[in-house]
């Protein structure tokens, strides 16, 4: 590969990755600011607004993405990759910016949550169209034998987007007072998006169309009906199904377990302090992110199949021991208390007496319990909360255990873009690869937190001793089925893209 070629491919990677990263950023800030957004747009005392809130969370995150994949995938196979993923970028950026401009529920009433829901659905559609375009565009530029390596840069964007969203929110919060952030500062991360999208749009605008697609267009071999050819043709449909049940379904649940379920498990099941969870998750993600590229590169050498299946197998075998070990770090029955501190304060506004009890354990673990009692009736205890601050060595143990899960994510996710684009011919590539990816990630992966939480609460109600591990049955079973299908039906030989 000459120096000019290398420079050219880096330009392609930068333009594609930056846009995709911004789309993930836009998608995540809604989730990261969910608490403040709900107070501004979805008052809990209004059932309709609360219903719209749930729809905004579920529908955009899970259901709309496959529809975006179909809509923009079809466009990408008809008019080209470049213009389509520029459209998704603009759609995402404008929707995000506009969410930051909507007046609150107090000002415009019911229209506020309705507008948020509509814009959130547009975000989901855009995200559904973006990934396939970026992955296809990069893969069709990449030299033969290096597709795994170059497309793996696209795979890092979801994690980097999450990190940047956290950083922008953190910086905005640190520059403003709590009151200012609550009144208008929460809008800043949404407004920042339009600047990033503008820069990315200019970069993408100056890029050329994918050479493989241009050649097909010139020869008049592009599809006239990509949806019909992808899903109405038996030969192609069997590969769409194989991609879904033999790869993306398992990849989706491994990804969501490592990056999202680990976080919610530590916060809600282990009751670890929320800031401490964010910090240790951030460290694990930073340490793990380079491995997307490592496994993408390795997949060029030994094939995509065995790396992805290896990641799934490790996840299936090790999830329960890993979560068992994580839970043990906060098992207070095995720790000795060395001191107990208690303080009280009166909240005049709420007419409540707050009691904070701090138990310090021999190994440095701190348990903080908060209770609130009405001043008028001191026997009434309410709003009890308890959180654990783990000691330094346990913190690093948790970082390691989350890092191991991120490694599984990088194994299944690093090579998948190359794997998917190689599965389908140029005429229907965008459509055919986008759908299984977004069904696997959006539906199978996206439903993981809700299903896992349901399984945990169900077995807790039955009084099972290891109830906290039962949420893992969902990713283990889904990844298990996917592993068997992938190992038996997927071919590991290298494929041509032409």
């Amino acid at each position, binding site marked *: 590969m000459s120096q000019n070629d290398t420079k050219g491919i880096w330009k392609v990677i930068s333009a594609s990755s930056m846009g995709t990263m911004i789309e993930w950023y836009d998608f995540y800030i809604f989730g990261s600011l969910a608490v403040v957004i709900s107070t501004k747009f979805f008052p809990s005392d209004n059932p309709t607004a609360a219903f719209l809130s749930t729809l905004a969370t579920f529908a955009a995150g899970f259901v709309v993405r496959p529809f975006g994949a179909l809509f923009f995938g079809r466009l990408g196979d008809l008019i080209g990759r470049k213009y389509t993923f520029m459209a998704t970028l603009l759609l995402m950026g404008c929707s995000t910016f506009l969410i930051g401009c909507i007046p609150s529920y107090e000002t415009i009433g019911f229209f506020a949550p309705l507008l948020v829901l509509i814009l959130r659905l547009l975000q989901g559609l855009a995200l559904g169209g973006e990934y396939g375009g970026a992955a296809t565009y990069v893969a069709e530029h990449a030299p033969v034998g290096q597709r795994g390596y170059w497309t793996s840069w696209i795979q890092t964007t979801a994690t980097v987007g999450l990190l940047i969203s956290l950083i922008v929110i953190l910086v905005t919060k640190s520059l403003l007072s709590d009151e200012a952030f609550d009144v208008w500062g929460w809008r800043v991360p949404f407004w920042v998006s339009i600047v990033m999208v503008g820069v990315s749009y200019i970069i993408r605008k100056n890029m050329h169309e994918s050479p493989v697609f241009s050649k097909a267009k010139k020869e008049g071999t592009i599809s006239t009906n990509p949806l019909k050819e992808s899903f109405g043709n038996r030969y192609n*449909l069997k590969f769409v199904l194989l991609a879904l*049940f033999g790869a993306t379904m398992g990849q989706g649940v491994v990804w969501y377990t490592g990056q999202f379920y680990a976080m919610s498990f530590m916060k809600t099941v282990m009751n670890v302090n929320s800031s401490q969870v964010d910090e240790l998750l951030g460290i694990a993600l930073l340490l793990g992110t380079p491995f997307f590229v490592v496994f993408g590169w390795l997949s060029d050498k030994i094939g995509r199949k065995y790396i992805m299946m290896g990641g799934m197998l490790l996840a299936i075998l090790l999830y329960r021991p890993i979560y068992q070990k994580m839970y043990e770090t906060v098992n207070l029955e095995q720790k000795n208390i060395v001191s107990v501190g208690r303080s009280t304060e009166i909240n005049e506004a709420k007419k409540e007496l707050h009691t904070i009890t701090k138990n310090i354990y021999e190994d440095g673990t701190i348990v903080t319990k908060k209770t609130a009692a009405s001043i008028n009736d001191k026997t009434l205890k309410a709003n009890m909360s308890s959180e654990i601050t783990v000691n330094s060595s346990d913190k690093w143990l948790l970082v390691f255990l989350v890092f191991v899960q991120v490694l599984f994510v990088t194994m299944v996710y690093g090579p998948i873009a190359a794997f998917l684009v190689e599965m389908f011919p140029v005429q229907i590539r965008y459509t055919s690869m986008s759908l299984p990816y977004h069904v696997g990630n959006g539906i199978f992966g996206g439903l993981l937190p*809700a299903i896992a939480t349901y399984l945990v609460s169900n077995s807790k109600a039955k009084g099972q001793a290891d109830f906290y591990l039962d949420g893992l049955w969902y990713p283990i079973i889904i990844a298990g089925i996917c592993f068997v299908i992938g190992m038996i039906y997927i071919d590991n030989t290298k494929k041509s893209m032409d």
Partner: protein
Amino acid sequence: MNTIKRTLGIIWLLLAFAAAYFCVFEFGLPKLFSDNQEDLVFGIIILFILTPLIVAGLGIFGYFAIKGEYDLEKM
């Protein structure tokens, strides 16, 4: 290998039926009749999005496997 692929097709078909039962009677319907609105949306997604995807998708996949669509010479 082709024989294994075809035989396992029956398993995928049976799994599609099993998934239909669990999705409808264990996850979907109980959530659909819950008073909690979040549960209601979850139930709707399980019943009308996840269930058809798994049942139809895995069913067709199993059928294709039985018919030999995934035989080595056809890949």
